[in-house]
């Protein structure tokens, strides 16, 4: 086992893990702040990927640039989804359960609408740099990985700064910590929730584009993506932005190392097994819950 293989595996593993983190950070936020488990989160991410695909295919728009179009678009769509579908169930006895069932239905709808629009054939996002790499000594930094990684850093930092530095962001954090008290101060919880939800969905769009740069995608791919982001979010601690990023890093390291040391047949098993053991010993994720 030589160091080149190990380091190379780590490089791509970590970048991949960060892409999962970007896909997951919004999911973590909706769950933490609103108690909504948004099953169609990854489906919205996939929608972002398909939009980027069409923009690249027909107008030659680079996927990173197209994020500038699809992210605001998804924000608006998500505002509508919140008002129409999510808001009515916030009065349920168990919002978590109700939201899971509802958004599961939404995911099925989105998936099949995507089949109707884009067909079921698999797609690959291939900008000119799709299979190039930055070569540093013996190591290769693949451009799609680099782009996804950068998008992820930018996206997660933006969310973090929004929560820490803006008035709305602070209101979101307050609403998460003490919903009743926050309302007393005249903060409109519904508006806060809507913004959180829409923001989360738009990061999913960016995450979807990043992931589509790494792997091919089909309308049903969101099911798989959902599993990845679930893991990242849980390891990082629900509602914890920095935690999610760290979790992406850790999962990347685990995958990278196991790809280097283990027979591939056992990689997935070991990853899931380690996560299981990890959760048994740290039953609240790596970091504390909280925004």
């Amino acid at each position, binding site marked *: 086992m*030589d160091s*080149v*293989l190990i380091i*190379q*595996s780590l*490089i*791509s*593993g970590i970048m*991949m893990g960060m892409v999962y983190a970007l896909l997951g950070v919004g999911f973590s936020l909706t769950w933490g702040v609103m108690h909504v488990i948004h099953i169609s989160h990854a489906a919205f991410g996939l929608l972002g990927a398909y939009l980027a695909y069409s923009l690249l295919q027909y107008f030659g728009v680079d996927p990173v640039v197209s994020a500038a179009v699809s992210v605001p678009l998804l924000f608006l769509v998500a505002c509508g989804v919140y008002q129409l579908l999510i808001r009515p169930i916030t009065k349920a006895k168990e919002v978590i359960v109700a939201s899971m069932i509802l958004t599961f239905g939404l995911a099925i709808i989105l998936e*099949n609408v995507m*089949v109707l629009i884009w*067909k*079921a*054939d*698999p*797609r*690959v996002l*291939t900008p000119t740099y*799709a*299979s*190039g*790499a930055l070569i540093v000594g013996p190591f*290769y930094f*693949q*451009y*799609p990985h680099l782009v996804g990684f950068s998008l992820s850093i930018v996206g997660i930092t933006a969310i973090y700064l929004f929560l820490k530095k803006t008035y709305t962001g602070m209101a979101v954090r307050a609403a998460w910590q003490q919903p009743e008290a926050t309302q007393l101060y005249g903060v409109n919880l519904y508006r806060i929730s809507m913004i959180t939800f829409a923001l989360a969905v738009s990061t999913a769009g960016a995450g979807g584009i990043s992931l589509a740069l*790494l*792997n*091919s995608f*089909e*309308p*049903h791919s969101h099911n*798989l993506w959902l599993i990845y982001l679930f893991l990242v979010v849980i390891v990082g601690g629900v509602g914890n932005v920095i935690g999610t990023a760290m979790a992406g890093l850790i999962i990347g390291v685990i*995958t*990278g190392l196991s*790809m*280097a040391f283990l*027979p*591939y*047949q056992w*990689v*997935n*098993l070991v990853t899931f097994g380690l996560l299981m053991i990890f959760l048994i010993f740290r039953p609240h994720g790596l970091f504390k819950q909280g925004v």
Partner: protein
Amino acid sequence: MKGKRMKGFSLLMTIAVLCGLMLTVPAAAIGAGKPIVIGGSLPLTGEFAETGQWIERGMRFWAEGINAKGGLLGRPVEFKIYDDQSNVGKAVTFAEKAITVDKVDLLFGGYPGTAARAVMPVAEKHKVVYVSMGGHMKSFQQGYTYSFGAPPLMGEWWYEGFFQWLATIPANQRPKRAAVYTINNPVGLALQDSIDRWTKKLNIQVAINEKYNSPLADATSMIVKAKQMNCDIIFANGFFPDGVTTMKAAKALDYNPKAIVQGVGSVVPAWIKELGADGDFVFSGTSLYNKLNYPGNDKLNAYVKTKYNLDGYPLYFGFGYAWMQTIEQAVTGAKSLDQTKIRDWLKTHKVDTIAGPMTFDKKGLPAPINFCTQIINGKVELIWPKNIRTKEPVYPKPAWKK
């Protein structure tokens, strides 16, 4: 409290009654002059939707053709296709529904291999002819007599043509060390079978022989290993997503083996369409091929050109069509819709399909297929058997264009 429970209970009873009502929907009466109904299920939504939809298109194109000619046995044909949602359990239930409730005259084949493996016993128990791609060699060794692969998708045969061609080039130009990465499922195991046989015969050292479980999120370390071990041929025995991931990593890491051999990933139209020049020079097998010189292929190609703007019909479109051709000839030959007569006719006669003439052995299989394909300049070309070659193979593979 009791009132509430009663309420719930009456709800349960209502549902039970509704269920009962659903079950009494009468089965369609069948008689002479009525259409011949061909039924079964395909994965039209979910994980395998893409393939399922191509098979359906191929089948429907066949039906258009035969109905224009006046039908089968003088009766028009009609499909009753259920969507099994890529769920094998549902594929079995729907096969039973087609056979016992719809009382279809003929059954059609399904996808993927696991579904075919589960539906083959259903066909056998009900004594109904089942023409499909099957589930590789193991499924045809179970002693079923009503199942036919016409043509089958046979992992064990998939690389036969490739190796036969490889054997013809001078030994010093052949690859010396192979990296074999195989998806851990029935297709993968079947593909591995022929690699084991032939690498021994051709004295190619298998330096890496590993299986992986899907999904394959990243192929970087696989390519690094292959590069470090100086493997000059790589077998990527997988599907489209893992194939794409492997190809992208190979290019990014500038890995240039003499040959890249793909499992069943490169045979879907998306490979050429999505990967473009990066998908070039990949070897693979096939069960049928759109440039074969058998009657019908031109017609299919013209159709997919106008309808889907594709040069040459996709493999699974061809499968759907070829299975139907087989059934058509068996029914016409047996002059009957009696399943056992159709089966016996198939066991003793030759059928001519777009994939060529076929006769079936005891297992329901034709003679081993040995087509080898290579993607050259964005087109799938046939390079083996030599006498029907459409283009000279490109070997060794040129270095990646950066």
